[in-house]
């Protein structure tokens, strides 16, 4: 069927328009909630069905990429900008994840957002997000990708600040958007360079040129372009230094955190880098930078997650950390492995976030884990799904996370394209920390004695089937998702990096180390938090300054505020607002006006109203005219 790809992208847009125009006014009303929910969920599910069909078509065609031109957007001079869709193995995987996980999160939201006064608006925004995300992953040219890139940024802003009556939420949305835009500057510069060299922004063409080393690819400094594109990725995918928006983004409703800030939007940067792998294969310097930034981000975020007390914040920093892992993989040339981790991460992180949402829902809004505990028996479904997902992220063998994370660690160590022992070392330490803080979260939330207040405890109840059903599905995927051998599936398109010969035999060793680390983390957490509460307390007291540093998130936000935000604000206020705008512009305009007024006042003094004077002036004028006529005599 023609235009399948276009339809996949456009169906959610239709949902957005319908819900946006009709449901908002009546959102919250019982009957219309149902309509909004049906409209909101039907389109993503339809898109998912179409994606499966497209995938089958792709498979039938022997996996040659499907190109689907849609519309010529602009013709400027001799360059034409087309909107076209492109479907190959990489896009297929991404689209399946986006539509699949997206659809189930929509279903979850019908339960979570029940009785919210802006029910319809929520689904409208979610559909809008899906539309842009699909543009991003299905686009053939970087231009379409960028449209999607910006669009998901917009949707993210709208959804983070969804409950905008609270100013903090609105501010968080704004912070996300602005930080994104800073990264986009780098992205744009990279795109400009590419366009200038190739005259087109079609990613397949560009990649091919780089891989075969044809003419134009030689002119463009691959590392520079690679770095610029990576700057964009740091903004969107929350790496150092532009990660600061992600923890604040937890102000949005939990399904948003799950969909956008765990499963899909934040992986856009990873997708971009994997898609442009041709460039990065020719740019070892840029790749090295990516790997280092990735591993540092992973390590750094994990340390902060160790001491966070808000359930969503722990997961947020965990996301930043896992994204760091993905970039580490990208940096050492293991593009397919990074995508593998994207997929498994989507499963277990979405499950974790939605589970957290279920907990918050059960507790009537409480998010502080110090006030939880003992929920295992009260909300068992949530508990078990959460536990499975936690085990997955920690890397317990057999579950999805284990496979992807282990591959990353292996390539970090042994890849011939930049792998190094120290990279592996930091990553391994991070993995240990990941296991630790995730099990800490699990224990503090669900196990042990209850630390809840009486009335909260009284109201604890399991979530409706719309929520728990999704949780179960995602837990299953977290468990079994690792068996889909994605790196090998992608290998036909994006080759895996070669292994340094001398290190090849370490593979088994490292595998065992990974397993040990996972269980060590589990054990440590149980030791710390499974026993009396005094144990974590005494450790905390012993390391108080470190603890303070970590819970203050290294005070990076404060640093940014002082070094960047305040000077810019000062500049805008004083120089631009008062100086230029008020002084120059208003001043010159008002000055002109008052000049006109004053001169008019002066001139009007001549209007004395005395006829005699006028007549005198007439006489003087005549004299003057006559005198002037003498010039020619």
């Amino acid at each position, binding site marked *: 069927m023609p235009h399948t790809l276009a339809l996949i992208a456009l169906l959610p847009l239709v949902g957005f328009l319908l819900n946006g125009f009709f449901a908002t006014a009546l959102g919250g009303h019982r009957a219309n909630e149902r309509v909004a929910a049906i409209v909101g969920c039907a389109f993503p599910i339809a898109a998912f069905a179409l994606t499966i069909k497209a995938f089958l078509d792709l498979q039938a065609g022997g996996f040659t990429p499907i190109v689907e031109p849609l519309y010529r957007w602009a013709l400027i001079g001799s360059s034409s900008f087309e909107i076209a869709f492109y479907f190959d193995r990489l896009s297929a995987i991404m689209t399946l994840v986006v539509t699949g996980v997206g659809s189930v999160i929509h279903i979850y939201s019908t339960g979570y957002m029940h009785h919210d006064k802006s029910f319809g608006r929520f689904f409208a925004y979610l559909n809008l997000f899906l539309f842009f995300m699909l543009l991003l992953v299905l686009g053939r040219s970087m231009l379409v990708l960028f449209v999607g890139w910006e669009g998901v940024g917009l949707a993210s802003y709208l959804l983070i600040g969804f409950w905008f009556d609270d100013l903090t939420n609105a501010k968080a949305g704004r912070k996300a958007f602005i930080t994104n835009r800073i990264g986009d500057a780098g992205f744009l510069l990279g795109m400009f360079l590419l366009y200038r060299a190739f005259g087109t922004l079609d990613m397949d063409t560009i990649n091919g040129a780089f891989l075969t080393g044809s003419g134009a690819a030689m002119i463009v400094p691959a590392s520079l372009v690679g770095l610029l594109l990576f700057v964009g990725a740091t903004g969107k995918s929350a790496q150092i230094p532009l990660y600061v928006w992600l923890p604040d983004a937890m102000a949005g409703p939990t399904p948003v955190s799950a969909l956008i800030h765990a499963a899909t939007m934040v992986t856009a940067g990873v997708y971009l880098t994997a898609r442009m792998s041709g460039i990065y294969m020719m740019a070892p310097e840029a790749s090295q930078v990516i790997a280092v930034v990735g591993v540092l981000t992973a390590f750094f975020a994990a340390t902060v997650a160790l001491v966070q007390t808000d359930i969503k914040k722990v997961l947020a920093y965990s996301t930043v950390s896992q994204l760091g892992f993905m970039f580490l993989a990208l940096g050492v040339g293991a593009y397919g492995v990074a995508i593998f981790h994207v997929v498994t991460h989507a499963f277990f992180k979405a499950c974790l976030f939605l589970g957290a949402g279920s907990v918050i829902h059960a507790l009537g809004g409480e998010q502080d884990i110090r006030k939880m505990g003992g929920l295992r028996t009260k909300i068992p479904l949530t508990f078990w799904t959460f536990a499975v997902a936690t085990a997955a992220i920690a890397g317990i063998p057999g579950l999805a996370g284990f496979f992807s994370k282990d591959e990353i660690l292996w390539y970090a160590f042994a890849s011939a394209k930049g792998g190094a022992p120290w990279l592996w070392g930091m990553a391994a330490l991070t993995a240990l920390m990941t296991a630790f803080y995730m099990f800490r979260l699990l224990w503090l939330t669900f196990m042990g004695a209850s630390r809840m207040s009486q009335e909260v405890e009284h109201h604890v109840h399991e979530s409706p089937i719309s929520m728990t059903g999704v949780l179960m599905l995602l837990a299953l995927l977290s468990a079994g998702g690792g068996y889909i051998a994605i790196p090998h599936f992608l290998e036909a398109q994006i080759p895996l990096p070669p292994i340094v010969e001398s290190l090849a035999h370490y593979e088994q060793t490292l595998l065992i180390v990974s397993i040990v680390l996972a269980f060590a983390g589990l054990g440590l957490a149980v030791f710390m938090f499974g026993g009396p509460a005094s144990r974590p307390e005494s450790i905390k007291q012993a390391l108080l300054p470190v603890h303070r540093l970590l819970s203050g998130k290294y005070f990076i936000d404060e640093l940014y505020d002082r070094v960047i935000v305040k000077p810019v604000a000062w500049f805008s206020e004083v120089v631009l607002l008062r100086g230029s705008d008020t002084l120059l512009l208003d001043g010159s305009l008002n000055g002109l006006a008052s000049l006109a007024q004053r001169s008019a006042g002066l001139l009007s*003094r001549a209007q*004395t109203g005395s006829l005699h004077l006028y007549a005198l002036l007439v006489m003087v004028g005549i004299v003057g005219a006559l005198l002037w006529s003498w010039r020619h005599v």
Partner: protein
Amino acid sequence: MDKVHLLLLLSGALFSLGLLGVIVRRNALVMLMCMELMLNGVNLSLVTFSQQRGDAAGAVLVFLVFVVATVEIALAIPIVLLLVRFKRSMDIDRYSDLKG
């Protein structure tokens, strides 16, 4: 100094005297009369030129000036009348409502 020059001088003098009268005299009616004087001066010079060149155009203009003068008087005097009724004075200097 021949005749033409004299006549022209006289015409100029009449005109200037009339203008001076407008400047100098205070009474509204007197000012009007001075304006008549100006018109007469102009008429004289027109006639002189017309004679000199043998052209009928001058005479036509003279006729036009007659008509204009008549019309002007016909309208100016009622206006002055009305104004005087309001202001109760014929002193031009008191009429400064258009000031500023």
